């Protein structure tokens, strides 16, 4: 095989590794061997053959397709891509030029440092227009008392620039949408459309089944207590004339955890809490018992019957009077700690499902520390993507007290449940 092909394949392997596939040198060797005997003009066949070598799950196949289509372009696609790229660059240059002119026009009315000026040029036209209109609205005030208004105007600009930065970081995560079913696993739960919810629920059931299978296999593997089961060993030895060649051991009976779930059901958290609860409830291997509490400004207990389906869950939340209110984690945790007879003790695992946006963060942190002292373990499942935590002070504060697991997607939620069940 030509040196150039091998170099290309090796670069392709590196690219697959960068995207998270374990493309081993042996795979590249196999791929080279395959291609040497194949008709390279049949693009689809080459793609399938390489996919068979490099991808070993359905998820990996989707990543492979994306990398392959980006790497091995047809001549026509390459030309079209170059043309699009040129057009995009020209358009971008025009927009940046326009943004620069706008900045020049603003003069000293807005104090932006060099990095903020650069971010401003990256803003889409509609966002820039909003800021221009805002500036126009306050034009007279700024001219009259620049000291009074400059800080305020700067804060509005800074907020818009920060939001833009967060949006760009989120867009870079590359949610997989080629396979709608798989895509649902990797999409932000808060962005599910109503029509996608039945599909998401059936996916939760499928993934929960898989985790249950995995956990029961894990338990079986570790079921050995190390103590000899003398009776079964003797019985077993009868088939071999009494020689004890096949030792039988007593089974280990692992104690399952007692879970206490504290779910934030204020406004935007409703959908996430519903999914997360459904997930945890369907994992029969996780806990021997669980109690669920719903909170916003106050806290109420929900029974298993109320959590059985989405409509019943929503009705429960609405009737409890906590729907549509703000979030006060401090109060919720204080009440939970004060319950008599006590809910939290050394054998309970407290799981908090919340985006950590709460009033009075300081009180919430103190209450969380108390809850942690009372419980065996505290885990926080946060639906906000981990990359955005750094922008939220309350998240940073509570994450210092207890382990926080990102759960913005069903995939992350499944991983969190695995972690919860295994440890």
């Amino acid at each position, binding site marked *: 095989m030509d040196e150039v092909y091998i170099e290309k394949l090796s670069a392709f392997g590196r690219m697959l590794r960068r995207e998270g596939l*374990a493309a*081993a040198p042996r795979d590249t060797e*196999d791929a080279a*061997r*395959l291609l040497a*005997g*194949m008709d390279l003009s049949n693009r*689809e*066949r080459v793609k*399938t*053959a390489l996919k*068979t*070598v490099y*991808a*070993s*799950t*359905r998820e*990996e*196949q989707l990543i492979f397709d994306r990398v392959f289509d980006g790497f091995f372009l047809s001549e026509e696609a390459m030309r079209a891509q170059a043309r699009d790229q040129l057009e995009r660059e020209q358009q971008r240059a025009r927009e940046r030029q326009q943004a620069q002119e706008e900045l020049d026009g603003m003069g000293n009315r807005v104090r932006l440092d060099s990095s903020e000026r650069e971010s401003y040029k990256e803003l889409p036209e509609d966002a820039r227009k909003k800021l221009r209109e805002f500036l126009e609205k306050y034009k007279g005030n700024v001219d009259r008392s620049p000291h009074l208004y400059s800080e305020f105007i700067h804060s509005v600009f800074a907020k818009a620039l920060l939001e833009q930065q967060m949006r760009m970081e989120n867009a870079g995560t590359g949610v997989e949408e080629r396979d709608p079913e798989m895509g649902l696993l990797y999409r932000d739960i808060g962005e599910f459309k109503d029509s996608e919810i*039945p*599909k998401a629920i*059936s996916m939760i059931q499928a993934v929960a*089944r*898989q985790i249950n*299978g*995995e956990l029961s*296999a*894990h338990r*079986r*593997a570790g079921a050995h207590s190390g103590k000899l089961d003398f009776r079964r060993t003797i019985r077993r030895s009868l*088939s*071999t*004339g009494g020689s004890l060649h096949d030792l039988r051991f007593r089974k280990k009976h692992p104690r399952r955890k007692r879970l206490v779930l504290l779910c934030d059901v204020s406004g935007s958290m409703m959908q996430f809490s519903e999914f997360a609860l459904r997930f945890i409830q369907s994992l029969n291997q996780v806990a021997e018992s669980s109690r669920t509490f719903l909170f916003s400004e106050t806290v109420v207990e929900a029974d298993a019957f109320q959590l059985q389906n989405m409509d019943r869950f929503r009705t429960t939340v609405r009737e409890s009077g906590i729907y549509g209110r703000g979030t006060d984690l401090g109060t919720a945790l204080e009440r939970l700690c004060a319950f008599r007879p006590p809910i939290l003790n050394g054998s309970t695992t407290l799981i908090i499902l919340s985006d950590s946006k709460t009033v009075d963060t300081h009180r919430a942190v103190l209450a969380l520390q108390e809850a942690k002292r009372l419980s065996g373990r505290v885990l926080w499942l946060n639906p906000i993507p981990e990359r955005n935590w750094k922008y939220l002070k309350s998240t940073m504060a509570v994450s210092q007290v207890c382990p926080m697991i990102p759960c913005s997607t069903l995939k992350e939620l499944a991983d969190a449940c695995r972690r919860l069940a295994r440890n």
Partner: protein
Amino acid sequence: MTLEELRQKLDETQYVYDENMLTVLYVALTLGRPLLIEGAAGVGKTEVAKVMAAALDRELVRLQCYEGLDESKALYEWNYQKQLLTIQIHENDPDKQTLTKSLFSDEFLLERPLLKSIRSEKPVVLLIDEVDKADEEFEAFLLELLSEMQVTVPEIGTIRAKTVPFVVLTSNRARPLSEALRRRCAYLHIDYPDMDKELAILRKKLPNVDDRLRLQVALAVQKLRSAEEILKKPSIAETLDWAAALDALGIRELTPDAVRNTAGFVLKNNEDLLTLEDQEEEEPCGACREHSHG
């Protein structure tokens, strides 16, 4: 074997395949990699192994996995009864060392599917069915066999493969398989067939059934599979059973009555049957509607 030769061999069987599957089978065969097939129950995963055995003219050796499967059921076991008898017969024999040695020879070795597949004089197709049902230790044990094509029997030593079997592993994803096992395999995911493929399967497997009925059955099954409310989606085997049952009853058109009377062949739980009844009341199935429009 070239890709075209493999195509020719597969054409001789009754299996309906697509270009994707053909390429994957060719790759697994060429590289000598085990083939791991995943997909929902009843999409034809096990059938691939049977078809490859027929196409390659090899014997099919099957190992059905289940919880608690161990080496004694999968690889080998000593014939203890025979060993005890031999000891008793040679009780007075002075040469104990030779006797002991002979007890762990081929004569007392019971071959199980894995050992049989690598000690066979002619290469075979080894089907390790539903590997996800086996324990993790068994999976780890399979690694040596799949990567080195050899197994270690403590009393004998390492047994190398006389011939290399074509290995097919199937999984319903009841639990994820280890990364190490996956890495050693070529991977194929089989989805439920689309309309054209389903129809082609019906034509190939049930050539005597009326073409119009086949079309209606295929259409109805596609519709059932796409319905969110149906919990257990009908598999290909169930499609074939349904069409055969309709044909045996002399039904030539898939009318609502015919669907009601034979639904048990395609839907296998009560909730699904009730859902179908409800849907039929609201709106007759696609196939019937097409029929009524001519």
